[in-house]
């Protein structure tokens, strides 16, 4: 009977080790503090009505960024734990983490950084900026957008829930490679937490991808043809195209792994004809494009930043668009370079090696775009520009390392070494994360109405930039010396320890940099009266998002702009200077519809969270109840007829 009601869940699942107890106390403490503060300031209703149930992409964007920021701290702590362990677990000393716990930490670090930090920031920017850049008032489907966001939150909650209930996470590496992730070798609930967390948030991502493609293709302002779109919007379109191409593969692959674990099927098992290498292939068919999903919007952000701060239009717009499309296209053809050692034969390896090298061509073209945009430009070294220049340096290092790794014989040597770890961190941190920070500082005044403190921002940048090289250059060297990745202990005779300690010092510099960014936000908030942005155009921008007030009204544009050229807002400004009163902006005010708030996204995601939890612990009655509930709410949504309200001219007219 107990087993029917609670499944595998017993009292033993409650926290009983120092890190789970610590995590539980920390998280409940946070929840209680927030709850008390909310009640004290009587903000619950405000929170629910203004934020949680909102369908405004701008508010959803901010919520994405907040959740991603929290997860960044969580993933960063994991990184610190890994570095600390590796600098002290030498010879006699075995460090402060058990091997099992160390494995869980690096798995959680990878999963959180990729799925919940980078993807979260990315969707945050897309939500806020893309509608503004294309001159739209909202997204194609506001409901799918809130649903996607809340599914992402449900996944994020589930991946942290293992601290409180169960106390173990997958110890398999971030991709849960089979057969290690099968029940034979991972009998606990850790892998199930991984499965359901990614399954739920992955479906949210797919919905987001569909929604943004619909928005960008069908809701652009009059006159904005595809080749007049801002480059960040182009990058978003490429990235979302990849999302809808590969996230279904992830969903299907994880579902098959789940079937293996739940129903004893034999897809990736060692016996009964299962084929574990197939899992590696399938997961990397998603996994490699995933990295480009993160990277391509960052390339778009850099293009915007470089053009704005060089006061020139982007050099070679068409080349940039073709490069983005090229990177996205070739990204689908390179997955096998993650496991040249599979033994697929020299021809197969040669194909994938060459296709990997080809990616360097469009990426190089992007660099030429940026360099030639800066040439003869009036460059201002504001913080976003510094982050761009920092990226240009790190990304070149990482790119060269990538070219090395794409050569199969070299890869046979460096496979699974710290050289590889250093390479992909250079790409993802030095590429995607630097872009996210650049975009954050660049668009911050638009989102919150005041600029960030430039001086602290520059300190933060230098700590990050130097800290980055101090922490990752040693890993390149260690990799060449033969240190494999995911080591929880090594012998003193290897002579690796000094380099690992140097790497830890780099992590401390990175942490100071991160703290400085938080200080920067706090100080700027404190002094926001001084740095208030009253014009809506603090950087002398070129694209339509700068033509609105900061922050924009909830309907973005009272009159939809009419676009004649690529840098639409720049053109408007030029014509204003020349006092040409052409019909640049539609003058006619008219009433329009805006979406209503809805809580259904929260309800459905809440049920999805419960469903995931029930399936992890094999509480099948609860899973069935939740599934029925989800179907009910989805049908319920289709019966909602009044999902929009009218905004009258009197409201929008100045």
């Amino acid at each position, binding site marked *: 009977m107990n087993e029917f009601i609670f499944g595998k869940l017993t009292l033993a699942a409650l926290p009983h080790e120092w890190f789970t107890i610590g995590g539980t106390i920390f998280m409940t403490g946070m929840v209680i503090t927030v709850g008390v503060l909310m009640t004290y300031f009587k903000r619950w209703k405000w929170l629910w009505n203004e934020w949680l149930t909102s369908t405004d992409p701008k508010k959803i964007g901010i919520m994405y960024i907040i959740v991603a920021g929290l997860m960044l701290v969580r993933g960063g702590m994991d990184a610190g734990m890994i570095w600390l362990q590796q600098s002290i677990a030498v010879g006699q000393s075995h460090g402060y983490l058990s091997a099992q716990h160390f494995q869980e930490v690096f798995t959680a670090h990878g999963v959180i950084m990729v799925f919940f930090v980078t993807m979260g920031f990315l969707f945050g920017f897309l939500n806020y900026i893309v509608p503004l850049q294309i001159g739209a008032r909202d997204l*194609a*489907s506001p409901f799918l957008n809130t649903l996607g966001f809340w599914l992402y939150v449900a996944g994020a909650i589930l991946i942290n829930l293992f601290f409180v209930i169960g106390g173990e996470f997958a110890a398999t590496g971030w991709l849960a490679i089979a057969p290690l992730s099968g029940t034979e070798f991972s009998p606990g609930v850790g892998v199930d937490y991984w499965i359901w967390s990614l399954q739920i948030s992955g479906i949210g991502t*797919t919905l987001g991808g*569909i*929604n943004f*493609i*619909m928005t960008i*293709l*069908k*809701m652009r302002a009059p006159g904005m043809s595809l080749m007049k779109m801002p480059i960040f919007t182009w990058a978003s379109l490429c990235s979302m195209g990849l999302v*809808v*191409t590969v*996230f*279904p*593969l992830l*969903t*299907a*692959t994880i579902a*098959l792994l789940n*079937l*293996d674990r739940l*129903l*004893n*099927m*034999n*897809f990736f*098992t060692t*016996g*009964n*004809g*299962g*084929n574990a290498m*197939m899992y590696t292939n*399938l997961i990397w068919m998603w996994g490699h494009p995933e990295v480009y999903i993160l990277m391509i919007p960052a390339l778009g952000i850099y293009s915007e930043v470089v053009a704005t701060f060089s006061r020139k239009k982007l050099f070679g717009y068409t080349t940039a668009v073709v490069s983005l499309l090229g990177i996205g296209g070739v990204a689908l053809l390179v997955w096998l370079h993650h496991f040249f050692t599979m033994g697929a034969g020299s021809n197969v390896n040669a194909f994938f090696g060459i296709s990997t090298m080809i990616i360097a061509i469009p990426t190089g073209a992007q660099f030429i775009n940026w360099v030639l945009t800066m040439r003869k430009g009036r460059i201002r070294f504001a913080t976003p520009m510094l982050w761009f220049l920092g990226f240009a340096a790190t990304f070149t290092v990482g790119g060269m390392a990538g070219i090395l790794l794409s050569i199969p014989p070299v890869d046979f040597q460096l496979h699974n070494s710290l050289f590889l770890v250093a390479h992909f961190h250079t790409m993802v941190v030095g590429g995607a994360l630097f872009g996210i920070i650049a975009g954050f500082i660049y668009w911050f005044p638009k989102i919150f109405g005041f600029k960030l403190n430039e001086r602290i921002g520059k300190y933060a940048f230098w700590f990050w930039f130097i800290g980055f090289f101090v922490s990752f250059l040693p890993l390149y060297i260690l990799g060449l010396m033969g240190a494999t990745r995911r080591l929880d202990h090594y012998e003193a005779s290897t002579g690796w320890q000094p380099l690992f300690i140097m790497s830890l010092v780099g992590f401390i510099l990175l942490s100071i940099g991160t703290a400085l960014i938080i200080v920067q936000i706090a100080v700027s908030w404190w002094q926001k009266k001084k740095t208030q942005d009253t014009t809506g155009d603090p950087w002398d921008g070129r694209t339509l998002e700068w033509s609105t007030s900061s922050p924009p009204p909830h309907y973005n544009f009272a009159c939809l702009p009419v676009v004649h050229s690529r840098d639409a807002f720049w053109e408007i400004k030029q014509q204003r200077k020349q006092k040409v009163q052409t019909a640049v902006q539609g003058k006619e005010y008219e009433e329009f519809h805006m979406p209503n708030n809805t809580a259904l996204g929260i309800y459905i995601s809440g049920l999805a969270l419960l469903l995931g939890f029930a399936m992890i612990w094999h509480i099948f009655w609860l899973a069935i109840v939740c599934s029925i509930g989800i*179907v009910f709410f989805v*049908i319920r949504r*289709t*019966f909602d007829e009044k999902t929009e309200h009218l905004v009258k001219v009197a409201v929008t007219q100045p």
Partner: protein
Amino acid sequence: MKHTKMTHNAEAADEKVFLGFWIYLMTDLLMFAVLFAVYAVLRNNTAGGITIAEIFNGPFVLTETMILLTGSFICGLAHLIAEKGNKRKTLVLLAATAVLGIIFLGMELYEFHHLISEGHSFTQSAFLSAYFSLVGFHGLHIVAGTIWILVLMAYVFRNGLTPGNIRKTKLVGIFWHFLDIVWIFIFTIVYLFGGVL
């Protein structure tokens, strides 16, 4: 003037919905693609158990196929009739589609039950895992489609053939055709390649 603007807005909304729905169908198709690929890799990994040639029952699968195809045809008719504004006939045709869907599901469940009761469950071999998953995933879609048709009938019954309901009829038709096409591939790749070739 006002009227044309309204219809224009409705058309733009329609365009968005159809684009989104097509992209969704493509994502769904990619999930099927994974299952097809997995099936192709594992089809001979029978681990000494039953093979597809032994499962294959020509007339039975052909009947299933014909039922599904007929359903698809009727669903297409339902959309055409709905465009003409005949509510009663639309309801009848939608009901017929749903019934055919349920019959198809019944046959599939019978086949699954038959296999499992003879000891050839999905745990027996990698081939059977792939077989059950691919065919079962299609079956799940039929379940979803059938529920959708029933809900749509409730709509049409309650509100009549509003433009929104006509659009939904068209969407459900696209979905049903999509499932048909996927089934044709299952019929060919799983059953015909396995049983005849």
